[in-house]
């Protein structure tokens, strides 16, 4: 440990592991430390099942849960957008070769107390009970507009300037009603609240395009999920970092981040050892005095021995409950994975209900989500603070990631990583730095 590094990365959550990989690939000498003896921090998948029960102080699971080691339960639920940033990072860095994925079978949205499939093509749109006859036609015109929309070609904007006009005015242009706006903004564009309505329409158009491009990739839904759980993702990027020379130390407590007189980081101390470095990259838990609380996220892990009603017995789904449907500011998300992803014993399902906390009684906030699940065999609730750094780290050279938000995909995660990389290195990540041989090895 007593060496000098370009960068020391603290914590092996997904963001830190991607950063570590990108830094190593760029030729930096990286030391990557975690205080835990496992990879993943908050983005770990807990295994065996006994470990999960112990973590939440619950009595050990009985034999109906099958073999404990067949379970890998995520603490933070997220899916990958098939055409999203994380998939691009995985492919460009070659990390995808360590992983296998399955498509999420269906994406549902909650309306008037029940769930409906988010239509993925014209046929489904016509059959959908989300809209009436005339609304369907208007929605179709809207989708065609978005599909044909090209940012570089003003002709496709059709007398509408998407960089100045807001999204509300685009909805109004097509005469879409509140319900349609709701599922478009929340189940297609994946906004957490309604702030986007007053923002330039271009942002929402990009998101709907991401949704439909992702859908076009594999069909059933725009989402992918890794076999054995999300915990595989940080491990894959950690391996990338190690392949490019990164040094890994788990189970290593960090006692101090050592600063020079002018407040710039010079090293990291663990016991009597100090590793010198020029920069530190870390998650908020390593620097409580350098982050502030922005809010809270509630997540409820539910173990079920049956699929969710009205999803055609799907082995995986996402259900979005738009805020307005249940009188809230933020959406409630339900994500379901199961034994088919090697994250649960045969016959078992894991549903996760999550949202951004708005009241003093977060547990009752997620009730509409829990009510969709049917009988729940076991429930684990966690409420986590959501932190962001107090500064950008330019003076201290300590670059801190934001906590994982309530979104159910990785787009904000990747954007945070790319921003931090740029703050730390002063440049955008150059994907061509990943050695070509990496691709050629895979004959």
């Amino acid at each position, binding site marked *: 440990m007593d060496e000098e590094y370009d960068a020391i990365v603290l914590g092996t959550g997904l963001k830190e592991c991607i950063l570590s990989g990108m830094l190593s690939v760029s030729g930096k000498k990286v030391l990557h430390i975690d205080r835990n003896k496992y990879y993943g921090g908050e983005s770990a998948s807990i*295994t065996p099942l006994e470990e999960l029960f112990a973590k939440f102080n619950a009595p050990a699971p009985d034999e109906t849960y099958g073999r404990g080691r067949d379970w890998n339960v995520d603490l933070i639920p997220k899916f990958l957008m098939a055409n999203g940033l994380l998939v691009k990072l995985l492919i460009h860095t070659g990390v995808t070769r360590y992983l296998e994925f399955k498509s999420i079978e269906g994406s549902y949205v909650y309306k008037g107390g029940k769930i409906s499939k988010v239509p993925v093509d014209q046929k489904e749109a016509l059959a959908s009970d989300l809209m009436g006859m005339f609304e369907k036609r208007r929605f179709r015109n809207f989708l065609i507009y978005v599909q044909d929309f090209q940012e570089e070609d003003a002709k496709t904007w059709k007398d509408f300037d998407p960089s100045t006009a807001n999204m509300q005015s685009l909805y109004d242009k097509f005469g879409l009603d509140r319900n349609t706006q709701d599922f478009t903004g929340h189940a297609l564009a994946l906004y957490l609240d309604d702030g986007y309505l007053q923002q330039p329409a271009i942002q929402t158009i990009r998101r709907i395009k991401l949704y439909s491009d992702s859908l076009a990739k594999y069909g059933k839904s725009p989402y992918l999920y890794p*076999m054995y759980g999300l915990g595989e993702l940080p491990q894959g990027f950690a391996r990338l970092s190690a392949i490019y020379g990164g040094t890994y130390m788990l189970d290593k407590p960090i006692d101090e981040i050592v600063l020079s007189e002018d407040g710039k980081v010079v090293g990291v101390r663990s016991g009597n050892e100090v590793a010198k470095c020029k920069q530190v990259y870390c998650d908020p838990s390593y620097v409580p005095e350098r982050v502030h609380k922005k809010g809270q996220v509630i997540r409820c892990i539910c173990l079920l021995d049956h699929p969710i009603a009205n999803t055609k017995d799907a082995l995986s789904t996402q259900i979005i409950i738009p805020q307005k449907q249940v009188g809230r500011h933020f959406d409630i998300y339900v994500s379901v994975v199961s034994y088919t992803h090697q994250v649960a014993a045969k016959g078992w399902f894991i549903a996760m209900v999550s949202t951004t906390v708005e009241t003093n009684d977060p547990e009752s906030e997620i009730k509409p989500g829990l009510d969709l699940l049917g009988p729940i065999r076991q429930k684990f609730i966690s409420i986590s603070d959501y932190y962001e750094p107090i500064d950008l780290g330019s003076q201290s050279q300590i670059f801190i990631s934001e906590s994982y938000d309530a979104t159910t995909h990785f787009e904000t995660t990747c954007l945070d990583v790319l921003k931090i990389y740029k703050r730390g290195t002063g440049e955008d990540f150059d994907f061509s730095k990943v050695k070509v041989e990496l691709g050629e*090895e895979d004959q």
Partner: protein
Amino acid sequence: MATNRSGAAQRPNGAPQTKVCQFKLVLLGESAVGKSSLVLRFVKGQFHEYQESTIGAAFLTQTVCLDDTTVKFEIWDTAGQERYHSLAPMYYRGAQAAIVVYDITNQDTFGRAKNWVKELQRQASPSIVIALAGNKSDLAAKRMVEFEEAQAYADENGLLFMETSAKTAMNVNDIFLAIANKLPKSEGAGAAGAGGARRLADGEQPRPSSCCK
């Protein structure tokens, strides 16, 4: 019966229907015992006197042709994560074979190798095929681990055992071939059971299960 450097599945004459089986093989052992050198010798037929500590290449494939079967090894090298005992569980996951390497000129590395074997027996799939490789056999003059001692240990634990030299190529192909022969090649053997799962970059079709016609 030779290994096939092109990596493409070759079919012996007169046997048009060869079964292709894919297996994940992991390397374990102390730093500098020659793990990467063994892989480099096996996959590319090369040896570097000053092989750097593993950087940049830790995932290689190589194919071995048996009589009726083509065995494709997906070879995982540790990428140095073993240095501070920080190997990710992903590394072992689904591994159907392992080569535990020690350096015959260094007794400590043999002790470490025994620990790796213990961990494999405890943590890995019960059907994993484990081979023990006493590497750097070209340096017999500096030998610190007796052949008989290692052979006896291997016999006790049901391991394949050979002394190898990545430098002279002695027994390198042979140890992979011995593993290929010992691996179960029935339909679906060792498969993760992950029907329909896909690798993203590889043409986006579902990956064949580890053993398929």
